[in-house]
């Protein structure tokens, strides 16, 4: 029997992002479309950053997860337009990021609050961080460093 699309989406929502495993690839907003083409399931994936090394791992993880659920033919299509934006992060994903200690993106260009203590007294340490999608900040209240998910 062919699984319906809502079921497929719920499966994909269980595939973790390889670099920030608390959120799923669906939370990240990179799965743009899922459709059956005959007996092949086509999944459109938009890369976050063009050189992000996680992109090929993500494609492999999605394929593996679907194969494990019995979907035999999976085709991953890379879709670059429109470009990925942090507006596509789900609300669930944003909440999970904050709980994990990563400040979610904010259009103001910097974090709204320290993910540890909630203070708004913050200093930017570096515009870049441990992965292309993050920057490095420090809280001036609790003095803890933290990652900020860059807003693009």
């Amino acid at each position: 029997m062919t699984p319906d699309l809502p079921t497929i989406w719920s499966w994909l929502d269980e595939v973790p992002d390889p670099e920030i495993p608390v959120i799923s690839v669906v939370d990240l907003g990179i799965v743009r479309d899922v459709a059956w083409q005959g007996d092949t399931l086509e999944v459109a994936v938009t890369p976050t950053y063009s050189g992000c090394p996680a992109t090929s791992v993500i494609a492999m993880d999605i394929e593996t997860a679907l194969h494990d659920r019995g979907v035999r033919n999976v085709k991953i299509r890379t879709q670059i337009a429109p470009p990925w934006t942090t507006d596509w992060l789900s609300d669930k994903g944003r909440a999970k990021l904050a709980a994990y200690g990563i400040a979610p993106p904010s259009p103001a260009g910097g974090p709204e609050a320290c993910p540890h203590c909630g203070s708004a007294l913050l200093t930017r340490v570096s515009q870049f961080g441990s992965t292309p999608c993050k920057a490095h900040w420090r809280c001036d209240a609790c003095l803890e460093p933290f990652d900020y998910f860059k807003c693009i």
Partner: protein
Amino acid sequence: MTDRAALFEYLLRLGDSTLILGHRVSEWCGHAPALEEDIALANTALDLIGQTQMWLGLAGEVEGAGRSADDLAMLRDVWEFRNLLLVEQPNGDYGKTILRQCLFDAFHFELLTELTHARDDRIAGIAAKALKEVTYHLDRSSETVIGLGDGTEESNARLQAALDLLWPYVGEMFAADAVDAAMHKSGIAPDLAVLRSRFDTRIDAILTEATLTKPDSAYAQSGGKTGFRHSEHLGHMLTQMQWLQRAYPGATW
């Protein structure tokens, strides 16, 4: 030159400039003056190499001879590269690296902004993707140039020396030739004269704030984007970058 040949050349120029600068910047990996700078440079290099994959991937498609982005990057020799001379210049000290980055970013930002309206969806799509990353690069490089230029006597002197050395490579970015004209005519590439005036406005503001003096010579080196004459540095770089594919042809991960 056919339209397809001109498009292929144009895509090589885009992809080769991001490739060569990406590789140059990656040479700092593990050697930058501060950990944060090391990470910033590695991330910038990663973006540029990612953009290269898209540009050279499309170039291979347009050429139609079965060459992949990897083939184009790793199996061509110096005279087949179409990158700007600016990006092949050695890293020098940190001041020179960041000033080179700022000059390229300011050009790259204006170019990509225009290419998002290209009359070719593939090019417009890649440009829109790359522009988001390059906006961030320009933010950082211009901020750092201002910080170092308007910094200590030592940092100011180094930035000024870098500017004097690199300025003759600025002109090539805006010098239109037959390929640029053909691409402009087919609604893909922007008018480089318009780009130049936007670049000048931005760079003038950055240099003023950085208390640096723009050299008043209009002399421009050329030969990179046409492949007519690269500087000696490119060949040395390729021996590093292409070593593995040259020594073990067809090797894969």
